[in-house]
């Protein structure tokens, strides 16, 4: 018995094929400009170029020549990865037909539909995709601003900041104190700060076993909390002091000159201070006028902004509903967006949006955990459908397999993003 494929799909899958004529301005191919070559932007650019087979002119604007992933940057701090392992070139994207421009986007004129570049000139677009990641909210941590990021690094954008934090960690005196100021919700990578605590503890246990870690946290609880706390007790007993909201963890100020951190009135002299301030959408989203407050609200079906149907925002910068701000999420959103944008510009079929996310974290050698969920587009938001999380007390074999899986995922997502 064989079914007719077309007939079957036609009746049972809600296809929203765009039948309208492709929307092309002026002559030549439709143009898509993507700002930001990270998890969201690189994926969107690659899928658009690859799937449109040259029918769309895709330009990616990204200032850096190598993309250093934030994902696995904590593993670098822990000594499990080298800095070179985290860096990826844009050569693969160029090879798949994306025009890669190494520059900053410094303005968006939504009426003229152009993006201006720091290096001068501007690029016209039919559709604009912004995936600029995050910036920090000014004044979020008293005493800290960007000029203090060398004394007290955030290491929440990977690259030189990550290397700086590692160098400071290595230079810590025996028995010294590492302080982290954790961010309030919502922020990039919910388990990120706690995976970092684990990796810093792993490093210190080997190199500086009497050192201490203090975490000042404005939140009463955090992602995978039971798993992390179990892991800290098992692997790093007595090393980590997590001060949550209930104990004044949100009442924090720092003095980068004196290298002190004050938590709920108590001043502590520290050797390393990793300050991760509150976050907001990368500045260009604000400059494009598509933000509302700190983030850019988007429509779940295609990631277009509420403010402008021709401007899309992906990844961390978007406010979309239930998905966490992760590289996996950004990559997932980018594919939905690319499918919709290609459909709008060339008339190709547009399939229903499906999103998913899984975040792995490493707690200690071969002790990996994960949390994940699937999502769908509703008229209001991206809504969670189903999810799972690793359990406390899992066997060491399963934890090892989970860690190995994360390594496979890393290879998978970086090649999916950058070719």
């Amino acid at each position, binding site marked *: *018995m*064989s*079914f*007719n*494929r*077309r007939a*079957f*799909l036609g009746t*049972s*899958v809600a296809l929203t094929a765009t039948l309208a004529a492709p929307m092309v301005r002026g002559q030549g191919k439709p143009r898509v400009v993507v700002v930001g070559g990270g998890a969201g932007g690189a994926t969107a650019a690659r*899928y658009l170029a690859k*799937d449109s087979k040259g029918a769309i002119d895709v330009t990616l604007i990204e200032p850096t020549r190598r993309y250093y992933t934030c994902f696995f940057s904590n593993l670098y701090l822990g000594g499990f990865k080298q800095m070179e392992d985290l860096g990826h070139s844009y050569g693969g994207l160029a090879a798949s037909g994306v025009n890669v421009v190494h520059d900053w986007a410094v303005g968006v004129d939504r009426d003229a539909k152009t993006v201006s570049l720091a290096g001068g000139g501007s690029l016209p677009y039919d559709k604009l995709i912004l995936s600029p990641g995050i910036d920090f909210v000014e004044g979020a941590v008293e005493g800290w601003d960007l000029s203090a990021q060398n004394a007290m690094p955030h290491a929440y954008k990977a690259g030189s900041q990550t290397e700086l934090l590692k160098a400071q960690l290595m230079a810590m005196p025996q028995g010294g104190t590492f302080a982290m100021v954790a961010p309030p919700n919502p922020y990039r990578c919910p388990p990120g700060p706690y995976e970092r605590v684990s990796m810093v503890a792993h490093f210190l246990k080997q190199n500086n076993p009497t050192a201490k870690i203090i975490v000042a946290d404005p939140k009463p609880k955090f992602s995978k909390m039971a798993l992390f706390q179990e892991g800290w007790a098992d692997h790093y007993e007595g090393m980590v002091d997590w001060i949550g909201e209930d104990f004044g963890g949100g009442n924090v100020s720092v003095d980068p000159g004196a290298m002190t951190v004050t938590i709920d009135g108590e001043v502590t002299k520290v050797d390393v201070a990793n300050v991760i301030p509150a976050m907001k959408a990368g500045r260009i989203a604000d400059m494009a006028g598509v933000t509302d407050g700190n983030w850019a609200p988007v429509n779940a079906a295609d990631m277009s902004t509420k403010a402008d149907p021709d401007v899309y925002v992906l990844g961390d910068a978007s406010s979309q509903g239930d998905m966490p701000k992760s590289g*996996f999420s950004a*990559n*997932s959103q980018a*594919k939905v967006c690319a*499918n919709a944008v290609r459909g709008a510009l060339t008339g190709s*079929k547009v*399939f229903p949006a*499906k999103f*998913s996310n*899984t975040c792995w974290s490493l707690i200690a050698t071969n002790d990996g955990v*994960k949390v*994940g*969920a*699937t999502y769908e587009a509703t008229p209001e938001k991206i809504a969670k*459908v*189903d*999810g*799972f999380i690793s359990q406390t007390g899992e066997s060491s*074999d*399963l934890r090892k*397999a989970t860690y*190995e*899986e*994360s*390594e*496979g*995922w890393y*290879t*998978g*997502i970086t*090649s*999916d993003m950058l070719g």
Partner: protein
Amino acid sequence: MPWLRQHGIAVVAFFLATAVAADEFGDPAAGEKVFRKCRACHQVGEGAKHRIGPHLNGLFGRAAASHEGFRYSKALARVGDSGLEWHADTLDDFLENPRSLASGTRMSFPGLKKEKDRLDLIAYLRQFSDDPADIPEADPTASPVDHDLDPAILALEGDPEYGEYLSSECKTCHQASGGDDGIPSIVFWPEEDFVIAMHAYKNKKRPHPVMQMLAGRLNTEEIAALAAYFATLEE
């Protein structure tokens, strides 16, 4: 899972012919060490011959005491005749205490008391019985008919274009190039095997929380579409 890693491609049957849960599958590398205890009597691998004991190639799925040209004890021959076959669960029992299954066996071996040693050894031996199309927890002889899928589901022809779109979700983890470090390759599978495997996840018969979740929300046509796409992938 190291086994999957080694063998990359996978999966014909998902129905566990045995009681051993898949997540209890052992580590073949560790099993190789355990096998040192057996080497005085048994050979396994390329060119293995009968010695004091029979060679152990192609062990899984075979009736006990069924090698032509090896003289088994009466005891083992009898249990073989009465239907004992070597699968992960029967091997587990036998290895724990050989005499519990065949009281007069000449295999004078006290048995492996540690469950992990047995699982590892079984995983190691399993490699010499395998067909790369099989999953480790299944018998090597398991074939695509070992499933309870409605033939209409298998007959469904998928739309590769839709499959390509859906596959973008898979490719966040499974490399399009077929690389398989930590996460198995899923490219170039026969469509039917793909469909069977995905339905096994969907029905929570194969273990793995991520795959159960992702397959769980794919409908029958979507699974067919993915199978059609991955079977034809060129890269």
